[in-house]
């Protein structure tokens, strides 16, 4: 069975971001980029599934500009067998477009399991996994905190973190799983693997070749920083507090 993992290249989690002066977005030039942390967890889970013997191959895919190749090389260094880069140009690609591309790739690669991170840390959309599952009409187990694969019965048992607690689902393969934080701790790529990954071939595809039309249906109008916190005021008595709440903050 083949496992496909979708990874995204995002601004590194430790970087302090700032808004571009023209408010069109977040400053991403000269900023450190790396693989989305949830995608790393997804890749780690796929590698563990392969190491447990339930899968034969792990394929990493990424949709984005040319620099995505670096993220895919990290994926190869961590242990993925193959990588596919879908070059969608420099403009950011929205979740629905990514979902359509992944659907087309799934129809080419025919994996038994598609694993993604639950959301990307740059847009926090939490949409791609669910959309892909809908387009493919595959079962989905999102926010997975535990995944157990049964190879013979071709069933995945997924424990999901939901608001009320943990929900256990049983999914017939092929299925889509999106990973949450507590699923695993991703491994570090060792230097010999990084060296080997540098020379591996990454297959490059364009959306046109997959018969997917990228039509952005959302336009970002403005990005602003949240308003700065105002200093607090120390009041001297309860009466003053009530007065302020009534007359200044107008919430009483």
């Amino acid at each position, binding site marked *: 069975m083949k496992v496909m993992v979708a990874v995204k290249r995002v601004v590194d989690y*430790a*970087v302090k971001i700032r808004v571009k002066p023209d408010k069109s977005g977040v400053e991403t030039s000269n900023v450190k980029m*790396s693989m989305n942390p949830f995608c790393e967890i997804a890749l780690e889970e796929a590698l563990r599934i392969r190491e447990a013997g339930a899968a034969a191959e792990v394929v990493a895919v990424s949709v984005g500009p040319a620099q995505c190749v670096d993220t895919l090389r*990290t994926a190869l260094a961590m242990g993925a067998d193959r990588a596919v880069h879908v070059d969608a140009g420099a403009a950011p690609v929205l979740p629905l477009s990514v979902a359509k591309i992944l659907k087309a790739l799934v129809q080419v690669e025919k994996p038994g399991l598609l694993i993604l991170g639950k959301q990307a840390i740059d847009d926090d959309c939490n949409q791609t996994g669910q959309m892909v599952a809908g387009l493919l009409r595959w079962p989905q187990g999102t926010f997975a905190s535990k995944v157990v694969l049964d190879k013979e019965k071709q069933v995945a048992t997924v424990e999901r973190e939901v608001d009320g607690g943990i929900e256990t689902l049983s999914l017939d393969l092929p299925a889509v799983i999106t990973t949450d934080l507590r699923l695993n701790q991703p491994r570090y790529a060792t*230097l*010999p693997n990084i060296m080997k990954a540098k020379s591996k071939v990454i297959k490059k595809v364009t959306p046109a070749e997959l018969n997917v039309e990228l039509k952005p249906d959302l336009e970002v109008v403005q990005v602003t920083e949240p308003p700065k916190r105002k200093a607090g005021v120390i009041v001297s008595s309860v009466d003053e507090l009530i007065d302020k709440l009534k007359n200044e903050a107008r919430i009483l």
Partner: protein
Amino acid sequence: MYRSALSGVTSKSRRPLRCPFFSPFRAETPIISSVSPSPGLESRLPIPSNRFSSFRDPPSRASFAPSICFPDWSPGLRRRVVSRTRGLCGGSGDRETLEYDVVIVGAGPAGLSAAIRLKQMCLKRNADLSVCVLEKGPEVGAHIISGNVFEPRALDELIPQWRHEGAPIEVPVSSDKFWLLTENHSLQLPSPFDNKGNYVISLSQLVRWMATKAEEVGVEIYPGFAASEILYDENDRVIGVATNDMGVAKDGSKRETFQRRVTLLAEGCRGSLSEKMIRAHKLREKVQGQHQTYALGIKEVWEIEEGKHKPGSVLHTIGWPLDMKTYGGSFLYHMSNRQIAIGLVIALNYRNPYLNPYDEFQKFKHHPAIKPLLMGGTVLEYGARTLNEGGFQSIPYSVFPGGAIIGCSAGFLDVPKIKGTHTAMKSGMLAGEAAFRTLVEGATMETYWDNLKKSWIWEDLKRARNYRPAFKYGLIPGLTFSALERYVFRGRLPLTLKHGKPDHEATDIASLHAPIQYLKPDGQISFDVPTSLYRSNTNHEHDQPAHLHLRDSTVPELVNLPLYAGPESRYCPARVYEYTPDENHGLKLHINAQNCLHCKACDIKDPKQNIEWTVPEGGGGPGYTIM
């Protein structure tokens, strides 16, 4: 927690991949592992300090695996393959040995220049040498911070076509001012610098560009890998470095070793391995060199309002806020994109233990001549680093058996020019050439030292040697002498002034000084340390042993605190060291190693030299992009 360790550009090297050489570890028994005509090599690895407690655990493997190595034999080149390794930290995990002809520690201007020069010579002479550069930062350029007014002299020699290859060197110096500041006024003095033909750059950006150039010629660069130990053979010859691999918590350690025939240490000022080398081989004594002296530079990059920005404008100041006995000054350079670099450099031989360099910098920004420029602007990045000021008198003998020390690790900064990038690059180039001659023509690395002495580095540093030591007599005598040096003597005086006491011995005891009251940060011009630290993008994996070691853990409470009022809690620009009340109502030193900016000030300034800076897990530390 999450880290990817890949440099940004695909390598175009056509060198065939070697099969990594694996050997499990036992403390006593060697493994013969390859059929090499050259004599077997036994590597004696230094005993690890107890931070890697894994070696005391019983090894997890019961038997040896046969080790296979497929050497790549190129005719004409003697490849010495490691055939026996004797373990030191037996214990969990394999140790993988990776072989290169040259390994360079540090992907800074010196390290990358050496790599590029070496590969250029290989291409010209049709030789094939494998070059690997290890960098402890998460990516190339992440640990690079400098003023920087760049003199392109060395780059012109290294990559003559840099102007047409997209080098991020675009802002020529347009004006060059020098002010003496008092608390409320500024007095313009004639500029002692000659910056015509120089450029205002971000060194971090330049180094990133150099890394792409290096990879184009086939250099392999590995960011996120910190070289933590030097490996020796039985003749005390350096044959490798071992990296601290990541992902292992305080209870286990997996390491990788790099074997090669030439090692170049390019770790920057006060490099941890370089200092060990200099001490072990007495490299300063060999040439009657003096101790190195240092300064701490604290810098911010601001984005200022459009009308105030003058690209290429260069300003240096001396005087306020520092007193007459403390050497130092500020810099303010206008880069492109409305960005300015502003910083304060304070020599670390300051006397008052209550001096807080970070707070002095915040104070400086409030000067009436500086503040208007910053009003309405935002800080983009913050960082700090020590730099060498010893100059000519402090250069150690830079060659050791098995390699050499290049760049600021040896110390080639030209103090009166306040520039060290061009000399670092030139030293790297000379070492690259010497390494080539050593590996291909059978010369030795001593050629590096000989060529160093014949190069313009030597000439420039010799001419500049007396400026800094003159300041040990105070600000006015220093300035007077500097003027005489610059216009009259020009370095031709037959004497060489000596440095004063080493920086750590220069600190007076606290009772001789009064605490300095610093103003609280206003959040617009001046900021508190946590805010600044956030802007440095500093991060370390928290679950690792602290990389700052106290040689004697009782010294802080017994010596530093009572005698010197705990100076480390003041000079550290990242607030790593804090004295917090403990349960006995005393004060105890608390080390927040995760904040560390890798500036090395503590290693230099601690009065009893009790603090040892060692390299933490690779991939941590600051994340400078435009510094």
